[in-house]
C-alpha cells in the first residue's frame, strides 16, 4: 500500500459523499412534486412524450396498478431486446458482420440487462453488433436503472403517506427520471468520456499494420455513450469483454475515478433523498456513516491484500510485488481495489480488474458485498434493501426491549414482517441452492476454469452476482452453456422481481396506515445505537448465512495460499 494510493481512495469517497447531498436534494425536489426552476425546460418535452405514449399524467396509482405497469413494460422491453439480439445478424449497423445470438444466450443477455444485472456470457466485441449495443444494451441500461429507481421513490411515498393509497404515477416517474436525471447526466459524461479517449464511432474495427509489421484488428464502436449510462445506471455491462479494464472503456486513472463516482452518485444520493422524504436528516447521516464505514473497511482489505501480493509466486519464482495478474498498469492496486469494492457495494458489476485473479481476501470482499446487497446497493433497489433491513432491525429490537415495533411513525405488523422476511430470505436461497445444484452436476462443474477451492468460488460468485443483480464475474467460469444461461437467467429474474414485489406489497399496506405521533415509548431509529443494531443485523444475517459457503471457497483458499 502506498500513501498516494490510500489518499486517492479516501479522496474519491469524499468527493462521492459531497456530490451525493446536492444530488439527493435535487432528486427529492423532482419526485416530491415540488416545482423546480427547470420546469419550463422539461415540461414541454415531457408533455410531448406523454402524448406520444398515451399517458395521462394527472392520474394516480395504488401499489398494484403501479407495479403492474412496471412489470408489463419490463416484459415488453425484455422481448424487444431479445428480438434484437436474435436478429442482429440481418439488421443494419453491423460493420463487423456479427452473427445473431443463439436463443439461450439471447435469453440470458436480455434478462441480464432488463434486471440491471449485466451479467455477460458473451464477449461484446465478438458477439454484439453496433445496433445491439445501442438499441439493446444502451437502451436497457437506461430503463432498468429507471425501473429500480422509481420503485424506491414509490416506496418512499408510501412510507410518508398518511392513510392514502396513492403512491404516484409509474409512467410519469419513469419518464421524469430519464428526462431530468439520467439523460442529461449521461450526455455530459459521455461527451467528457470521448474527450478523455473513449471511442464513439460507427466505423467498423480498424485493421492496421503494426510497428512490427504484423496485422492487428482493433474493435471499436459507440463506446462512450454506452459507458456513461453503464456507470450512472449501476449497470456494469461493458462494450468489450474486458469491461472497464479495456483501454477503450477506461483509458486513464482519471476516467476510472469518474466511472467510480458515476456509479456511486445516485445510490448514495438516495440516502439524502430518503432523509428528506421522512424529514429526518439524522437518519440519513447515521446510514451514511455506517454504510461508508463498511465500504471503506472492505476496500482497504482488498487493497492491502492485493498490495501484499501472491506469496506462492514469490516462493516459486523469487518475484516480489503487488498482485498484478489481471490488473492494468494505469490503475495499479489502489484504484483497482476501490473499483472492485465500489462495483460490488453499488451492485454495478463493471470491473477494471479481473476478479478471478484477485487474491483470496481480495475476492472475498466483493462476494460479501453482493451477499449483503445493501452497502448503498444498486439504483433504487439498494435503498429498498436498506429499508427492508431497517424494518427487520426494528422488529428484532422491538422484541428485545418489548415495544411495539414501528418505523417512521408506522406500525410494523405481521404482514410487513412476513413480506420483509420473504424479501430477505429469497436472496440466500437463490444463491446457495443453485450453487449446490451446479456443484453436484457435470453441467455445472465442467465450465469451471480454476481447479480446487477457487473453482467453488467461481460458481458461488456467479450465482451471488446474478442474485444481487450485480453482473461482475469470476470470469474463468465459461457461463455460455445452456445450463448456466438458463440457471443464471432465472436467478436474475427472481433476484430482481420477487423482492421488488414483496416490498411493493408492503408499501401498499404501509401507505394506508396512519402516522402515529412520536412518544416516549417510540423506539428511535435515528440513533447511533440503532445504527449499530442495523449493521449487526446485516452482518449476522448476511455473513452467517453465507459463512459455510465462503469457508470452502475464498477463506479456505486464503489459508491454502499462505500455508501452501
Amino acid at each position, binding site marked *: 500500500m502506498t500513501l498516494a494510493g490510500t489518499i486517492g481512495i479516501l479522496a474519491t469517497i469524499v468527493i462521492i459523499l459531497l456530490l451525493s447531498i446536492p444530488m439527493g436534494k435535487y432528486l427529492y425536489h423532482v419526485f416530491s412534486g415540488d416545482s423546480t426552476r427547470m420546469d419550463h425546460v422539461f415540461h414541454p418535452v415531457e408533455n410531448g412524450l406523454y402524448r406520444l405514449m398515451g399517458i395521462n399524467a394527472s392520474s394516480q396509482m395504488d401499489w398494484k396498478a403501479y407495479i403492474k405497469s412496471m412489470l408489463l413494460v419490463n416484459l415488453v422491453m425484455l422481448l424487444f431486446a431479445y428480438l434484437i439480439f436474435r436478429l442482429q445478424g440481418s439488421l443494419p449497423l453491423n460493420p463487423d458482420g456479427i452473427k445473431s445470438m443463439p436463443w439461450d444466450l439471447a435469453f440470458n443477455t436480455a434478462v441480464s440487462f432488463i434486471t440491471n444485472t449485466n451479467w455477460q456470457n458473451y464477449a461484446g466485441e465478438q458477439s454484439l453488433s453496433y445496433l445491439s449495443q445501442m438499441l439493446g444494451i444502451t437502451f436497457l441500461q437506461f430503463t432498468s436503472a429507471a425501473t429500480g429507481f422509481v420503485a424506491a421513490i414509490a416506496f418512499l411515498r408510501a412510507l410518508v403517506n398518511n392513510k392514502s393509497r396513492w403512491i404516484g404515477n409509474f409512467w410519469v416517474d419513469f419518464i421524469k427520471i430519464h428526462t431530468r436525471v439520467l439523460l442529461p447526466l449521461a450526455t455530459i459524461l*459521455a461527451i467528457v468520456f470521448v474527450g478523455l479517449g473513449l471511442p464513439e464511432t460507427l466505423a467498423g474495427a480498424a485493421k492496421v499494420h503494426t510497428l512490427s509489421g504484423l496485422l492487428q484488428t482493433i474493435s471499436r464502436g459507440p463506446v462512450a455513450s454506452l459507458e456513461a449510462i453503464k456507470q450512472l445506471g449501476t449497470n456494469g455491462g461493458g462494450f468489450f469483454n474486458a469491461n472497464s479494464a479495456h483501454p477503450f472503456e477506461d483509458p486513464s486513472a482519471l476516467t476510472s475515478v469518474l466511472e467510480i463516482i458515476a456509479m456511486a452518485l445516485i445510490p448514495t444520493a438516495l440516502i439524502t433523498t430518503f432523509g428528506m422524504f421522512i424529514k429526518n436528516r439524522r437518519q440519513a447521516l447515521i446510514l451514511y456513516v455506517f454504510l461508508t464505514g463498511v465500504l471503506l473497511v472492505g476496500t482497504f482489505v482488498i487493497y492491502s491484500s492485493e498490495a501484499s501480493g501472491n506469496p506462492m509466486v514469490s516462493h516459486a519464482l523469487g518475484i516480489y510485488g503487488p498482485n498484478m495478474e489481471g490488473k492494468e498498469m494505469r490503475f495499479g492496486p*489502489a484504484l483497482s481495489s476501490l473499483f472492485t469494492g465500489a462495483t460490488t457495494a453499488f451492485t454495478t458489476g463493471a470491473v477494471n480488474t479481473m476478479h478471478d485473479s484477485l487474491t483470496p481476501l481480495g475476492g472475498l470482499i466483493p462476494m460479501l458485498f453482493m451477499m449483503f446487497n445493501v452497502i448503498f446497493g444498486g439504483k433504487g433497489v439498494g435503498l429498498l434493501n436498506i429499508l427492508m433491513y431497517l424494518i427487520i432491525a426494528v422488529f428484532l429490537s422491538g422484541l428485545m426491549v418489548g415495544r411495539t415495533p414501528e418505523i417512521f411513525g408506522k406500525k410494523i405488523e405481521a404482514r410487513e414482517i412476513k413480506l420483509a422476511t420473504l424479501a430477505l430470505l429469497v436472496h440466500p436461497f437463490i444463491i446457495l441452492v443453485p450453487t449446490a445444484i451446479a456443484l453436484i452436476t457435470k453441467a455445472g462443474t465442467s465450465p469451471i476454469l480454476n481447479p480446487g477451492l477457487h473453482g467453488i468460488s467461481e460458481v458461488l460468485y456467479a450465482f451471488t452476482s446474478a442474485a444481487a443483480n450485480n453482473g461482475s464475474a469470476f470470469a474463468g467460469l465459461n457461463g455460455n452453456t445452456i445450463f448456466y444461461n438458463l440457471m443464471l437467467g432465472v436467478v436474475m429474474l427472481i433476484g430482481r422481481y420477487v423482492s421488488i414485489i414483496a416490498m411493493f406489497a408492503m408499501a401498499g399496506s404501509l401507505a394506508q396506515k396512519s402516522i402515529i405521533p412520536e412518544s416516549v415509548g417510540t423506539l428511535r431509529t435515528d440513533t447511533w445505537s440503532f445504527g449499530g443494531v442495523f449493521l449487526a443485523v446485516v452482518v449476522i444475517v448476511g455473513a452467517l448465512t453465507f459463512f459455510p459457503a465462503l469457508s470452502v471457497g475464498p477463506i479456505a483458499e486464503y489459508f491454502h495460499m499462505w500455508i501452501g
Partner: protein
Amino acid sequence: MTNLWRSIRVTLVMAVLLGLVYPLFILLIGNLAFPFQAAGSMIKFQGHVVGSELIAQQVNTSGLFHPRPSAVQYAGNGSGGSNLGPTNPALIQEIRNNERALNVLPGTKLSSIPTDMVESSASGLDPDISIADAMLQVPRIAQTTGLSQSVLGSLVRRYETGRFLGIWGEPMVNVMTLNVAIKELMKK
C-alpha cells in the same frame, strides 16, 4: 389491453430516444469536438496508421519496447485476462513462461523484475508499462538499435506520466509513444 398497448408505445419511443437519438447525438458532438479520440486514438507513422495509442500490440523485435504480457496475444478484437486464480499451478507456470520470454539482458537480477512485467494484464491490451519495466528493457534496445542507453533512458523520462493529481494511478509510460519515438530516431 390499454396497458399492454401503452407499454409497447413506451418501449418503442424510449428505444428510439435512448438507443438511437442519444448515441447518435454523442457521436455527432464527439466527432466534431474530439475526432482523434472518437475514432480510437489511431496513431500514424510515415503516413500509415500503425495502431492505437491506447491498445497494446505485439512486438517481436528486440529493438522496441515490449508491452505487458497478454493472455489473448494482443488480439485487438478479443480482449481479456488469463482469469487464473491465485493458487492455480497454471498461474505459476504462466508467470514462469512470461519470465522466460522476457527479453532482458542476461545477468538481470530476478528480484529487480516488477510483478507487472511478468503478470498478464486484465484486458490483454494494456498500453502502458511501469518505469522499472521500461528501464530494464533499455540495455537490450540499446544493444539492438545502437542508440545509447542515456538517449533511451531520457526518452522514458520524457514520456513518463505520473499519478493524476499525485494521488490517482501509477507512474508509467505508454509503449506506443516510446516505440514511435524510437522509430523516429532510427530514421535520422
